[in-house]
């Protein structure tokens, strides 16, 4: 498949089942909501080393938040419910409780409820009070800037992590520019996050390593400087590859996000330096969800 002179590989992205949650963070203004959200979603690029994958979903205006203040919606994903609960509590305690004027609210409905401020309340040392308002329990914890307000729990849902595509370009600046363009477009899609720095990852990995202790190592087939050494996936004119990884609440959310991102790159055309779009998988045996690039881009081909 070729779209606007850019080749779309006949391959697929392989993704996994995850558990996800959404938290709405509000503050006095967007500046402090971003401080809280950035701290909360910091060091959360990959479950391999961070426990969770988290990111900012979008900015919320004051009339979209429960307490009528400016806010940020964040999504957080983990491989299991236990890790998600642990990480959410830790991050709430260290990043939201500590952030001036910040408050946290449930952002997703589900029968599965996990602690948001439920255990954090004990920070109040007996001075914490709860309010049950319209069937939802909130905790008010006295802190030095006034009162920290948090909902008791938030919902946890089944989600998908690891949707991805690779941008193969003639130079590093070209690959990065294309990735940035895709990320800007993908940020408009709800229910997804791109957890890596700036939404882009340059160190795609393969399963296993020559070193027994390493269970993942560099994706040598896509490393441009190894073209002559390994069974490379790259043609002579490819000098840099960037990957965008997507976690989302549903298959369709991720597929939409991938389509929007790839289309934004294809719209840049041949002059962008992008030659191919590919995707990362493990042969289809590890992850139950396969995002086939040709199917996703089917309606957009020319």
């Amino acid at each position, binding site marked *: 498949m070729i779209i606007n002179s850019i080749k779309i590989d006949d391959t697929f992205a392989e993704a996994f089942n995850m558990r996800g949650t959404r938290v709405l963070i509000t503050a006095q203004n967007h500046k402090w909501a971003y401080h809280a959200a950035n701290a909360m979603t910091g060091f959360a690029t990959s479950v391999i080393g961070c426990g969770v994958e988290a990111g900012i979903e979008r900015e919320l205006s004051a009339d979209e938040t*429960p*307490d*009528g*203040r400016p806010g940020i919606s964040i999504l957080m994903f983990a491989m299991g419910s236990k890790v998600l609960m642990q990480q959410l509590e830790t991050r709430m305690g260290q990043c939201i409780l500590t952030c001036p004027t910040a*408050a946290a609210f449930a952002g997703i409905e589900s029968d599965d409820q996990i602690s948001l401020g439920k255990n954090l309340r004990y920070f109040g040392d*007996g*001075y914490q*009070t*709860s*309010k*049950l*308002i*319209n069937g939802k329990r*909130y905790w*008010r914890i006295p802190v030095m800037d*006034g*009162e920290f*307000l948090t909902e008791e729990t938030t919902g946890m849902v089944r989600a998908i992590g690891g949707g991805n595509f690779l941008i193969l370009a003639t130079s590093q600046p070209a690959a990065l520019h294309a990735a940035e363009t895709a990320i800007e477009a993908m940020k408009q899609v709800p229910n997804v996050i791109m957890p890596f720095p700036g939404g882009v990852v340059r160190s795609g990995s393969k399963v296993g390593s020559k070193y027994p202790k390493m269970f993942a190592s560099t994706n040598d087939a896509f490393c441009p400087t190894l073209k002559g050494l390994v069974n490379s996936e790259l043609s002579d004119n490819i000098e840099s590859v960037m990957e965008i990884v997507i976690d989302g609440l549903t298959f369709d959310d991720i597929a939409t996000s991938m389509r929007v991102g790839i289309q934004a790159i294809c719209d840049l055309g041949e002059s962008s330096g992008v030659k191919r779009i590919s995707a990362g998988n493990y042969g289809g045996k590890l992850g139950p969800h396969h995002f086939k690039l040709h199917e996703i881009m089917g309606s957009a081909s020319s």
Partner: protein
Amino acid sequence: MTALTFTSKSNSAHNVDCRRLTPNNLANLTVAQIENLSLLNTKNSPKIADCFDVSGTDANHIIFKKTHHQLDYIGHKMTSGQITIEGDCGDFLGANMRGGNIICHGNANDRVGDQMRRGLILIAGDAGDYCGSRMIAGTIGIYGNIGSNIGFAMKRGTILLTKVPSLLATIQDCGTHTLPFLTLLFKSFSAFNTPFNALKNLRVQRYAGDLACNGNGEILICNTNVSA
């Protein structure tokens, strides 16, 4: 479904105990069954039909009409639903309440929310003495004047007022604060047609107590000026 309505027949010579007339007690009963219920669990208790005209079907929303200050224990131990009182009511409004909402468009007598544990009581008019006495938790709002000994032996919970009452020595001034949770609380009031709908200002005077008990209850004096 229309709200289950109790219209008081006349001003009684005696106080009427309304503790049985709650959503949880009357769920799934027909009007005939309700009319035939005894007001109290005593041998000589009057029937409900002796004191009230009953109409409507939705026991989850109970309305009291033509009310007066001798209707006691309205909403006693209620756990869910809503009770609307279109006029005044007697003592012990919402006593031992466990959930749901009570909206009183008139005045209430003494001991509003006595030993209340959860739920919301909003009174558009005045309330008598010992409001929120022995309160365990929940929210009471009184837009009008308030009697003496408010929050006596209150453990937790919130009492919203618009005027500073005379306070017990064991209820202490914590200063003026802007409390973020009030946005949520005020928003939840918008479902009811009361003067509380006009409250927008999150800046309140906070009193905490009763220090003779747990001391985690609070009396908030709301500012009725609209500007936040």
